[in-house]
């Protein structure tokens, strides 16, 4: 009896094995991908083998192995994350069933993500992944080891275009279009402002001309532009760095430390505020303070107020400068001349 | 006139240099007393000695310790080497393939004779490196259709392949005899190989337990080789080909072959290429520039065994190269003297492209020694004041006249303006 039982058990197990090792069909893949809201099949668990293993009828699977965990600190992963989601969305927008237009091939998207470094998804150990992000394209009638790696190089949007190029090349199709997510806010703002400008120009041309001739406006505009440039705005435009970093404890990092040739995009904003403050304070000192005279009838009061305001402004400049030098020291660790903050002065 | 004078000077100079023989002739003959009775080769050796070879004999036997081809591993001790068949592995150790290669690379000439019975490995490997693949040991060339009971291999005049090596004018009736123990070889396609004697059409070389080594005219009985530094190697597949026994038939061929191998004939020498401006100004005094008229000349002599004589040909080519050839044309014979034939390009115009050009004559003909004369010279662009002036170009007259019209009309305008202006002021003053 015991024998019989064990045989039965073995039979059952093999049957189960056969069933579970049977590759996913196109329909099953479609089902799996429709389950998630962004149509990307999640391969976090052991099931990946079953999904990726061929032979399928004619489904390609584009797999992204990534690590969004803050501990990994993978800037590329974070940057590519929304792009990949949008790639999937673009594909399914044009091809609702994941089928190509001629109906001969399917393309599905899959993803595995290291969310916790202590608990790696099994797929990472299976493929012995040491570098992320990795993009692989699984061909229909291959095994789990049968895939094309797609180079992850370039910068910013190039990742997307290169990946799509590679996928199209391997699949021999030419219909994978990437649709930029429409930023409704910017569309609305643009159209409203365009409308307002045209309206104002039509109705109040002379006022517009006056505004255009306003020296102060131009001055502020130019200075703002200069400040933007000095803050490394063009660096962001060309190199597309990530917006901000993630600290070890998961907090936001505003500064890319120990890197003088590199920066987060957010640093431009911080620096813009700092330089703007400086400009206001210096202009206030040179032009604002002497003008205080006009507001006081008694010269004595004016002198007192002037003295007070100028000292306050000078201290404010010192404080902002302290901030700037210390931020710089974060970037350039060996910098020997950071200013001491006022509190340090007071306590020593 | 100047040109002629220049050439004569050169020729006089050449005559002095060329009056001596090409090379000294110390010759080493390596043989195996067990296989070779030197007395059977007296005519062959006599041929060498009459041509003033200083022969050293080196019998290989048990006492032979080593074979010195070089003095203190530096300079070669002999200019020429005759390798008769030798038995035993000892030779392979003493006369390694690498040593032989070095000897040739150093400019030494080798006449290698193979007997199918004893094949020395090192010599075989050496020949392999040149592209001569002799049949393995014991494989004898057979020609069963030649006639019954006649095991000697005989070849007719049409099997003699290279006129520069073995001479001209052979009839089909001429017969050359190889012994019954003849080895044939296969020859690679290298351009430095010179097939000399072809195997008979009906012959083949049988190899034990394998396909035929050679079939029909694929096989060669004698092959020459010339290295880029003009060292010569020749190989014969039969020892008895040289022997006194067949000397009445083969004697002429043997003499020609040894003469060629030991650089006593078909040696070319250039007395230096020279290029100048068309008016004979040298490059050194006036560097070339784009579009200059140039003359290129080269003189070539041939050693006929006794004298330097002019070498006449019509396929001598000159190239002007900047990575790829810009010009390539045949040189014409211009001047023939007792010693030398001077070739000239005639006057030609340098290309309209500045750069560092190479002036090359590379004459490589199978059987003749190689000549390569190359000279690298810069051809500069036009200097700022070497372009034609604007007024020399008729097309520019339109623009020139335009410029001067504008200038003069402006001057006139200013004058008129000043004059009329004054009047206005006066008028106004008057009116006020």
């Amino acid at each position: 009896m015991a024998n019989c039982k064990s045989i039965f058990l073995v039979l059952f197990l093999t049957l189960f094995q056969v069933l579970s090792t049977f590759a996913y069909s196109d329909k099953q893949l479609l089902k799996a991908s429709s389950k998630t809201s962004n149509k990307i099949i999640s391969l976090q668990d052991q099931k990946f083998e079953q999904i990726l293993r061929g032979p399928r009828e004619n489904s390609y699977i584009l797999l992204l192995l990534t690590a969004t965990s803050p501990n990994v600190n993978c800037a590329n992963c974070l940057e590519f994350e929304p792009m990949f989601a949008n790639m999937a969305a673009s594909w399914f927008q044009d091809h609702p069933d994941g089928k190509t237009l001629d109906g001969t091939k399917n393309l599905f998207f899959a993803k595995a993500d290291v969310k916790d470094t202590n608990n790696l998804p099994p797929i990472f150990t299976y493929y012995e992944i040491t570098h992320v992000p990795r993009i692989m394209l699984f061909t229909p009638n291959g095994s789990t080891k049968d895939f094309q790696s797609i180079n992850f190089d370039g910068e910013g949007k190039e990742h997307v275009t290169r990946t799509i190029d590679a996928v199209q090349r391997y699949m021999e199709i030419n219909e994978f279009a990437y649709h930029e997510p429409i930023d409704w806010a910017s569309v609305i703002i643009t159209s409203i402002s365009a409308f307002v400008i045209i309206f104002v120009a039509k109705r109040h041309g002379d006022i517009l001309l006056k505004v255009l001739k306003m020296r102060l406006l131009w001055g502020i505009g130019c200075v703002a532009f200069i400040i933007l440039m000095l803050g490394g705005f063009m660096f962001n435009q060309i190199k597309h760095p990530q917006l901000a970093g993630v600290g070890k404890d998961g907090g936001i990092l505003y500064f890319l430390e120990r890197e003088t040739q590199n920066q987060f995009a957010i640093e431009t904003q911080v620096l813009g505020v700092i330089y703007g403050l400086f400009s206001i304070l210096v202009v206030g000192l040179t032009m604002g303070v002497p003008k205080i005279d006009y507001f006081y009838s008694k010269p004595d009061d004016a002198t007192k107020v002037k003295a007070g305001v100028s000292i306050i402004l000078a201290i404010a400049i010192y404080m902002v400068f302290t901030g700037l030098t210390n931020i710089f020291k974060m970037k350039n660790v060996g910098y020997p001349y950071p200013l001491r903050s006022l509190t340090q002065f007071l306590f020593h | 006139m100047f040109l002629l004078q220049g050439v004569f000077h050169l020729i006089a100079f050449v005559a002095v240099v060329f009056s001596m023989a090409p090379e000294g002739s110390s010759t080493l003959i390596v043989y195996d007393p067990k296989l070779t009775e030197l007395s059977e080769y007296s005519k062959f050796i006599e041929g060498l000695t009459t041509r003033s070879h200083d022969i050293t004999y080196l019998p290989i036997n048990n006492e032979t310790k080593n074979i010195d081809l070089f003095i203190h591993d530096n300079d070669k001790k002999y200019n020429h080497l005759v390798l008769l068949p030798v038995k035993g592995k000892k030779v392979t150790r003493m006369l390694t393939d690498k040593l032989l290669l070095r000897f040739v690379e150093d400019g030494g000439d080798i006449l290698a004779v193979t007997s199918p019975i004893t094949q020395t490995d090192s010599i075989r490997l050496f020949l392999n490196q040149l592209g001569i693949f002799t049949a393995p040991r014991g494989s004898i060339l057979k020609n069963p259709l030649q006639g019954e009971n006649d095991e000697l291999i005989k070849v007719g005049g049409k099997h003699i392949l290279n006129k520069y090596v073995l001479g001209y004018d052979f009839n089909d009736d001429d017969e050359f005899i190889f012994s019954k123990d003849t080895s044939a070889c296969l020859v690679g396609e290298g351009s430095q190989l010179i097939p000399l004697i072809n195997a008979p059409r009906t012959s083949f070389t049988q190899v034990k337990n394998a396909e035929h080594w050679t079939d029909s005219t694929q096989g060669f009985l004698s092959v020459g080789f010339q290295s880029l530094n003009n060292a010569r190697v020749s190989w014969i597949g039969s020892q008895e080909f040289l022997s006194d026994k067949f000397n009445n038939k083969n004697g002429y061929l043997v003499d020609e072959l040894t003469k060629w191998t030991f650089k006593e004939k078909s040696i070319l020498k250039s007395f230096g290429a020279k290029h100048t401006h068309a008016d004979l100004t040298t490059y050194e005094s006036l560097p070339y520039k784009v579009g200059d008229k140039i003359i290129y000349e080269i003189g070539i002599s041939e050693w006929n065994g006794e004298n330097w004589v002019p070498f006449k040909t019509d396929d001598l080519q000159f190239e002007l190269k900047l990575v790829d050839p810009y010009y390539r044309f045949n040189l014409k014979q211009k001047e023939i003297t007792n010693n030398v034939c001077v070739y000239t390009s005639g006057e030609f115009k340098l290309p309209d492209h500045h750069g560092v050009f190479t002036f090359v004559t590379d004459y490589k003909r199978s059987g003749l020694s190689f000549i390569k004369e190359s000279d690298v010279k810069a051809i500069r662009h036009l200097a700022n004041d070497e372009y034609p002036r604007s007024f020399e170009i008729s097309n520019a007259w339109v623009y020139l006249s335009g410029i001067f019209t504008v200038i003069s009309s402006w001057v006139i305008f200013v004058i008129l303006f000043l004059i009329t202006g004054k009047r206005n002021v006066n008028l106004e003053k008057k009116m006020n």
Partner: protein
Amino acid sequence: MKQESEIVSSKPTTKSNNIHWCVKWVQSILTALIFFTIFGAAISSRLFSVIRFESIIHEFDPWFNFRATKYLVSHSFYEFLNWFDDRTWYPLGRVTGGTLYPGLMTTSAAVWHLLRKIGLPIDIRNICVLFAPAFSGITAWATYEFTKEIKDSSAGLLAAAFMAIVPGYISRSVAGSYDNEAIAITLLMVTFMFWIKAQKTGSILSATAAAVFYFYMVSAWGGYVFITNLIPLHIFILILMGRYNNRLYSAYTTWYAIGTLASMQIPFVGFLPIRSNDHMAALGVFGLIQIVAVGNFVKSQVSGKKFKVVMLVSLLIIFVVGIAGLCALTYAGFIAPWTGRFYSLWDTSYAKIHIPIIASVSEHQPVAWPSFFFDTHFLIWLFPAGVFLLFMDLADEHVFVIAYSVLCSYFAGVMIRLMLTLTPVICVAAAVALSKLFDVYLNFSIKSNSNKNNKISYVSLCSKVFVSATFLFYLYLFVYHCTWVTSNAYSSPSVVLPSQTPNGEMALIDDYREAYYWLRMNTAEDAKVAAWWDYGYQIGGMADRTTLVDNNTWNNTHIAIVGKAMASREDKSYEILKDHDVDYVLVIFGGVLGFSGDDLNKFLWMIRIAEGIWPEEVKERDFFTPQGEYRVDAGATKTMRESLLYKMSYQRFPEIYGSGSMMDNVRRQTISLADVEPLDYFEEVFTSENWMIRIYQLKKEDQLGRSHKEIGEFERSTHKSLVRRAAKKPDVSLRAL
């Protein structure tokens, strides 16, 4: 301001006239003293490298300038002008005289001749090394004059002092940095100074001086295009603002006519001013100002409202027709479109896609903000404030400074090397801001009406002292910052690398010179050396050997040839190099030392540039593993391991310590003996002390006509295996009749 008020107050009596004279005298003495110290500071802070290392030319480009200067000193100017250099870009050669900016060389040659005339024969090398520091002093003076025109002489002195020691300028003008920029910034400031004077006064003399210095600038640096566009922009903005006047007309037309004609005399520039889009703005504004002048003249004769409309419409039409004409001419090919470098300033992704050779240069990268602070310290935040303060005055010359600031801050943001042109305007604007501030807070003159109340003025005095003191403290800090930056970042010759021994002592890595000297002493004088273009000028200058490509990257195809040779298999490379008569190949290898700027790290650029020309033969993809990694260890691709550069870099490397495997200190990967295949076609002839430079010689063509691969196989096989092979029928193509 202060001086002026005193001058005004001291008018009435003769006694005060005397005092006035006295004050003036003291002032000029003080000014002279200040200038003397500024010169001293400017020059001495640039001498770190000479003191720390030696009097040596730095970097790469300066080596060419130095070589050209030596040529000029030993030949006539005519020969220099028509110099055909057959020792670079072999075998094409370079029309060097016609493709360089001769300003730098002629200036230093003139200095050399002058010093000899007055009995001071100084080695030309020392003149070249100390050229930039000397000119930085003149730059400071020109900045002073310029700022004086913008505000007053106190602002001028501040600007001059800033200019003298600001690191953004020092970065390109330390001793030994004998580059075009060393003289160009001086000329830039002088030209601007004369231009401001000219547009202020309408003086033809000043405008001519501006044009002459513009010509000098054109002869010295390709960046002259910046002036060519900035001055017309200034005029254009002024016209738009309705500030046209006859002074502008005479200044601009004089400058443009003389400057353009003069600039066309430089062979390298030639007809560009009328044929390239870079220069079209100047031409357009020249036309515009004629129209505006005519319009103005007509307006003064026939007044009327309708005229304004006619004027406006005709201007618009002319503008549209002009632009359309320009486009048409460009399209038809009569006018050259913007040069690649210029174009990449506007379309920032252009270079990366179309011109890898421009993108590959680190100077052409965008700037992150720390560089701005690093190069200018507290001037960076005075700068926007200064621009704003100028807006409040907005005289004609202020428009110039504002346009300069806005334009150049954009350029500097896009390309790090243009930081250099931004620096002067930062100094000027910051000096204006600071001097305005000091005008308020360093003014301790007590007004007569406040005499009654000393208490109040005491408060006022205190606050003034406090504010001034903080800013004086910043100035003090600025000096420290500048000194620190200069000594740490900008004083390494990059030919000699400083390092530290394990004991902490300073040591010099002198591999470059060791290798170049080896080349000089051990190779034939006409030997041709193939190396990546970065080292072309140094090989030409230090080793005096012919090179295939160099830092004057005029022929992309030729550079691609070297890239292809480096990226191809040995036999193919040998063929390519032999075709170009190359004798030696030089590679830079940092794996032992951990020097990250080596050839293997630049390899991708070589491959990309070669791929641009031969996409079928060189493919970037083949050099990456299927996982997309750039690997050099056992995981490297076959193409990678067979490439010439790989073999040359790692030849003998794994056996340095006899262990058969070795860690590459740059790429942090372990190379083992099995990864490095033998070199058959090349022979190692030299490896420098720290393995940084390795030189290989091409083996001679085999006398016996075998390929080197065959020879290599023959030498490596055993006698037995050869005999065994000889027993079989040969596996080669045979001759048959």
